[in-house]
């Protein structure tokens, strides 16, 4: 199983980025082995619009089954729902802490987007 975490940096000590679409990196990680890879979200960062959708496609194409992030807007949320990716919002701290918490089952899967605006 792979999970994706929106991150401000490229390793497990990086903070979780509260923004999904405009986060600089996604850490794609196997929570059982803690093996990970950082995926650049540069493509979304320079987009005049649609960064959330672009970022969602990036995560979906990595075959992640769960996303941990701060906030997720309605369009990206719709894409995740269609691709059967569970979204967990309100995640804080470092990537490592977030993954540990996820493994202990402390998070609840979001049933709706956490923000309305796609410009955040």
């Amino acid at each position, binding site marked *: 199983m792979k999970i994706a975490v929106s991150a401000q940096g490229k390793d497990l000590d990086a903070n979780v980025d509260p923004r999904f679409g405009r986060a600089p990196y996604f850490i794609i990680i196997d929570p059982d082995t803690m093996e990970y890879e950082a995926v650049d979200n540069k493509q979304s960062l*320079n987009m005049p619009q649609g960064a959330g959708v672009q970022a969602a496609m990036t995560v979906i194409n990595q075959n992640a089954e769960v996303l941990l992030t701060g906030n997720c807007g309605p369009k990206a949320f719709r894409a995740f729902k269609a691709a059967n990716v569970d979204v967990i919002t309100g995640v804080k701290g470092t990537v490592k802490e977030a993954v540990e918490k996820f493994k202990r089952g402390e998070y609840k899967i979001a049933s709706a987007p956490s923000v309305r605006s796609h410009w955040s």
Partner: protein
Amino acid sequence: MERQITELVVISGKGGTGKTSIVGAFAAIADNKILVDADVDAADLHLLLNPEVIERHDFTSGHEAVINEEKCTRCGECISLCKFDAIDEDTYQVNSLHCEGCGVCVHFCPEKAIDFPEKLCGEWFVSNTRYGQMVHAQLGIAEENSGKLVSLVRQKGRELAEEKGIDLILTDGPPGVGCPVIAAVGNASAVLVIAEPTVSGRHDLERVLELSEFFNVPAMVCVNKFDLNRRIAIEIEKFCESKNVFFVDHIPFNPEFIYAVANGQSIVERDDEDLIQLLRIMWEKITNKLEEFDKQAAEAA
């Protein structure tokens, strides 16, 4: 617990209500804040604050089509496909004012004669001012994508606040209810609407309040130049009450607003004590309300 940053975005529906002058006054009154000029189409706050630019960056957004004359065979495919009439039929040049950057011509050109470089749309700055640091921008003349630039200056303002350990951001927002305003309102802690007691001012206020409701951002309202039409000013106050929107105060018509701008000053630096006192009281009411909003938001979370 993570530190909360409060961002107050000042907007106005229509222009010319005195929004920037009022932001300038609050900039002088409030302690310890980051200033953001998100009115990127007509960024005027710098005229009051005389910023010393310490950082300057290019703002690029999207792409634009550029036809390579040497490769182009003038087959006309691009012209027939372009939905924006951006390619001149005689010169085969792309009019950058019309080009939406959709890339259809780039994809379908049989000669691969169309380049698609990133588009330079403006600049953004970090500056020192006498009231603290400010993030501001200038959109290139006739450039688009101001929504993204608004998001960018707000984001940079937030990063600066985090870096400096400052918990208040005061943002001068754009007028209107379109793309730049949507970008300015989303995820703000609250908006302050500067309304004008005119038939159009009241009409615009209703639209702006609808927008803040749509984005779930709490609003506050004050009326500037209330004595130009006391009847409408009171109607606006009552309308706010009926909508459960906090009404801050009425500000009288006062030429000091113009004299201050003409001298590159904030109103607080002039000597109309009554006006200064009124603005101080307003700021106190606003900060109290902001705390209340923060508490409500924390409880809701």
